C-alpha cells in the first residue's frame, strides 16, 4: 500500500519536473519574441515570415528563426493539401498577419522594402491580397 503511494508520488514528481523543463523555456522565449514584436524590433513580413527589424539579442534572433522554420513546415503541409506552392500559402498568411495582427506602432515589411511602422490606419497591402480581411 505504502509502496503504491510512493510509486505514485515519484511518478507525479517526474511528470511535474519534465513537464516544467519542457514548457518553461519555450514559454519564456516566445514571450521574449512577443515583447520584441510589441517594441517594434521584430515584425511580420508580407512573405509570411517574421523578420528582425532592429537590434535584438542572439536569443531572440534564434527564436525568430525557429518560429520561421515551424511556419515553413506548416505552410508546406497546407500547400500539399491544397495543391499550391509553399510561397502561395506563405503570401496568403502574410496578407492575414499584415491585415489583422500587426498593431499600430509595430514594425512590418512588404516584399524586400524597408521596415515600416504601422500608423493609425490599415496597412496598404500588396495587390495580390485583394479581399484579405
Amino acid at each position, binding site marked *: 500500500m505504502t509502496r503504491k503511494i510512493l510509486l505514485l508520488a515519484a511518478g507525479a514528481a517526474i511528470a511535474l519536473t519534465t513537464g516544467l523543463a519542457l514548457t518553461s523555456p*519555450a514559454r519564456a522565449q*516566445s*514571450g521574449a*519574441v*512577443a515583447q520584441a*514584436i510589441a517594441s517594434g524590433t521584430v515584425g511580420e513580413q508580407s512573405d509570411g515570415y517574421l523578420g528582425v527589424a532592429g537590434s535584438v539579442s542572439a536569443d531572440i534572433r534564434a527564436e525568430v528563426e525557429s*518560429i520561421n522554420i*515551424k*511556419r515553413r513546415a*506548416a*505552410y508546406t503541409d*497546407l500547400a500539399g493539401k*491544397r495543391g*499550391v506552392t509553399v510561397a*502561395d*500559402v506563405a*503570401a*496568403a*498568411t502574410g*496578407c*492575414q*498577419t499584415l491585415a489583422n*495582427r500587426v*498593431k499600430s506602432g509595430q514594425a512590418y515589411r512588404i516584399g524586400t522594402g524597408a521596415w515600416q511602422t504601422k500608423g493609425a490606419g490599415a496597412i496598404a497591402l500588396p*495587390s*495580390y*491580397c*485583394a*479581399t*484579405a*480581411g
Partner: protein
Amino acid sequence: MNRISIIALGLTGLSLAGCIQVRAPDKPIEINLNVKVQQEVVVRLQRDAQDLIQNNPELFPQ
C-alpha cells in the same frame, strides 16, 4: 526642267518615307497571366491562412 525633276524625285522620296508600314511580328505575342493566377490562388487561401494562424498561436506571437 532638270531642277523640276530633281524636286519631283525628292518629293516622291519624301512621300514614300511617310508611308506607315504594318508588318506582322515574327514572334508570337505573349501575354503574361502569372500575376493574375497568383492573385486568385492567394485569395482562395485566405480562409485557410486564417485557420492556420488560429490553430498555431505559438507560431504567431503577438
